């Protein structure tokens, strides 16, 4: 029974990957087509405000200072392209299949589907897509579609090839409700950091374009300006940071229950701490003169690289107590 459900889960996951892959192609085609028509980089309203304010600040020091960050007004939507709608629709369809695969895996193991690396990746990518689709309902982030679906397909590929393990019972160390809380929140944090990093990457590409029209990639008109992207990235990343802080605390409480100490500089603890410190730096960078813009975007990307390293490298190659990969 367990075996059959697991095989069915794997099948659904492959289907989801296929659908995501086509969605990725659609998103990419849309980007390509729109950027072909974009000779001039349009400046979003928020960026115009920011630039005007920057100029005003330089000339009129001492006036009523309005130093808050500009509001992020989404730019006017261009005419909807069919490929874009196909991309979103397929992303949703893929997500439903992905959800089915994950739920089945959980049913097969009769527990939460995030007890080893394979399951963590499966649920992790599910939540990355979920957070992205959820944010789509609030803002037009479809320009991130190519990056997000691309990353998810890539991660799922690595996962199914490299991390796939059979369903086995939970070892005693993982038999705790903290498995549900600690790991789920860690996954949520990772999902928000992923969207944040994607925004920062677009921001950097965009910044190169704004500095010199001939350099860098050509990006479509509909993508917001760097200031807006930075604001969005910041808001997504602070949500991730809150979740990460909670992960750290919950992990310490669990460690105290399971291992008899709340903090022991285990390799995984070290990297969780490093990530926390980098994102703390990122949040401070935003409040430091001279560090807004591309520099803070780089910090967010460095932080996200540490997240990926913590998962992909530390779990597999580093010796430590978090040896749950099942590999």
């Amino acid at each position, binding site marked *: 029974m*367990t075996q059959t459900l697991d095989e069915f889960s794997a099948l659904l996951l492959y289907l989801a990957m296929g659908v995501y892959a086509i969605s990725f192609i659609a998103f990419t085609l849309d980007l390509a087509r729109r950027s072909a028509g974009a000779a001039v980089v349009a400046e979003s309203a928020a960026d115009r405000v920011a630039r005007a304010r920057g100029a005003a*600040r330089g000339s009129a*020091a*001492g006036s*009523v*200072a*309005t*130093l*808050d*960050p500009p*509001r*992020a007004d989404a730019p006017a939507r261009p005419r909807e392209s069919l490929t874009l709608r196909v991309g979103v629709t397929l992303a949703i369809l893929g997500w439903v299949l992905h959800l089915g695969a994950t739920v089945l895996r959980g049913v097969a193991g009769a527990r939460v589907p995030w007890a080893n690396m394979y399951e963590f990746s499966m649920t992790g990518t599910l939540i990355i897509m979920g957070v992205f689709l959820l944010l789509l309902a609030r803002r037009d982030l479809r320009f991130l579609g190519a990056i997000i679906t691309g990353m998810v397909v890539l991660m799922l590929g690595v996962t199914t090839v490299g991390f796939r393990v*059979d*369903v*086995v*019972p*939970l*070892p*005693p*160390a993982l*038999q705790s409700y903290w498995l549900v809380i600690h790991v789920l929140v860690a996954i949520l944090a990772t999902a928000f950091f992923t969207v944040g990093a994607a925004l920062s990457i677009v921001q950097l590409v965009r910044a190169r374009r704004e500095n010199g029209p001939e350099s860098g990639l050509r990006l479509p008109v509909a993508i917001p300006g760097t200031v807006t992207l930075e*604001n969005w990235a*910041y808001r997504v990343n*602070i949500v991730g*940071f*809150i979740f990460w*802080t909670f992960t750290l*605390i919950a992990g310490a*409480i669990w460690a*105290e*229950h*399971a*291992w*008899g*100490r*709340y*903090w*022991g*500089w*285990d390799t995984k603890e*070290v990297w969780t*701490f*490093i990530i926390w*410190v*980098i994102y*703390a*730096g990122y*949040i*401070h*960078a935003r*409040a*430091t*003169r*001279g*560090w807004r813009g591309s520099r803070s975007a780089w910090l967010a990307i460095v932080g996200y690289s*540490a997240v990926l390293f913590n998962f992909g490298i*530390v779990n597999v190659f*580093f*010796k430590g*107590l978090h040896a749950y990969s099942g590999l």
Partner: protein
Amino acid sequence: MSRSSDLARPTDHIEQEDGAEPVGGPRLGPIGWVRFAWRQLTSMRTALFLLLLLAIAAVPGSLVPQRSSDPNGVVQYRADHPDLYPIVDALQGFDVYTSVWFSSIYLLLFVSLIGCVLPRTRQHWQAMRSRPPRTPARLSRLDAAEERVVTGDADDALGRAEALLRKRRYRTERYGASISAERGYLRETGNLVFHGSLVGILVAVAVGGSLGYSGQKIVVEGEPFVNYVGGYDSFNRGRLVPDTALDPYRIRLDRLDIVYERENENAVGQPIDYTAHVTVQQPDSGSAADADIKVNEPLQIDGTDVYLLGNGYAPRITVRDADGDVAFSGAVPFLPQDQQMTSVGVAKIPDGLPEQLGMIGFLYPTVGQLESGALASGFPDLLDPVLSLNVYRGDLGLDTGVPVSVYTLDTDDLTQIAGRGTDVPAVELRPGETQQLPDGLGSVTFDGVSRFASLEIHHDPSQGWVLAFSILVLAGLLASLFVPRRRMWVRVHEEQDGRLRVEYAGLARGDDPGLAAAVRELADEHSGSERTVGGTT
């Protein structure tokens, strides 16, 4: 309304006015230099630099084994990299998180943090007790501004605006024909609580380190453990822990139950439950209480936590001399070597026989035979245990006064008389069996197998504090990142036609994506309750 006057932030904070310091700088005396250094240390840029430095400095501790978390790894590293070892050791690479360089980074960071937080706390205290600022002259120039035309009485309109703002938890103040309001003091409070609690965690950890203790003890089924310094196999304590700090309770391990997976063919032999059944006797109470210890469920006794961290088998062996008198009898803890719980241990019999006797034993909980003919264990549980003993005679080296591990046998001064490498096969026993030792030395009996539990006892009086501060860190963080701090103004102009033109404006202080919506919503509600005559801007 200068920012630097009402928010004591570092000079390079993005919301600080430019030009706070004169260009070129004044000539500095000694106090001036100290002040300059202090200002540098407490600047945002330094804090950011120290944060990133801390992140980088933490990396080596994950690459090189640490004495605190992986002492065996350090020993292994020494064997694998004899050239590199002294260099890494000199750089405190095996004690990164207590090293001078790591400590100095985080201590500087905390000094910087305190230097930043203290003046801000004072300023925030004053700000919380002061009135909202005067209404700026031109509200339409602010970030978020709305305008409505309404009818009615000006004083009435102002009164209603004040009521609406108060309902939204603004602190309000009336200046002539305008209302000035401010909210979100919690944002800065949260910020200060967050940073203050980080200091709290650091202090609690430092204090806890000198007041806490921890120790390990291997307890065989049926045996007791008493919580005093001499009762432990290994014991670490903080500088301020006297011997008398240990509460001498007694734990007897009645039984250790282990469940191994048998159904799932992908996981046969995987442990799925460990439960230690114990009897606890506290010194001041006559009665004993039963309790269970599981991996994620430590037992709490008198401010200590008792953890079940490991387990193994302890074969019960009896050795008799040629006359049948008992020379040794007891359970000998063996250390597990693999997933199937093949275990290795040493029995030493210094007295009662003509010569000292040492035995290296292999326990196969469920015995099987490899193709080579060697024995192996096929399942971790005790389905068909076999004990195999290599026997040595000679000087065990116990009389030199040098401490010797109970888990190793130094065979240099010993002569092997049974087992691989000799003519006599190893002594192989199933429970209940007895076999004669070579050379007429006597006999050895395998009475049976007990389990042992490796218990860890912890006492950390500060961990409740660490938890409390951690929760405050999270709460402070939530408030400082998500509570919008904003100012709002409403000004009423009486137009010549008798109608009222009302201006609404907001100013964000810090990241505040909802400002424009908040101003619009206030304007709508305020004007909507009146008959709206004019349009919006």
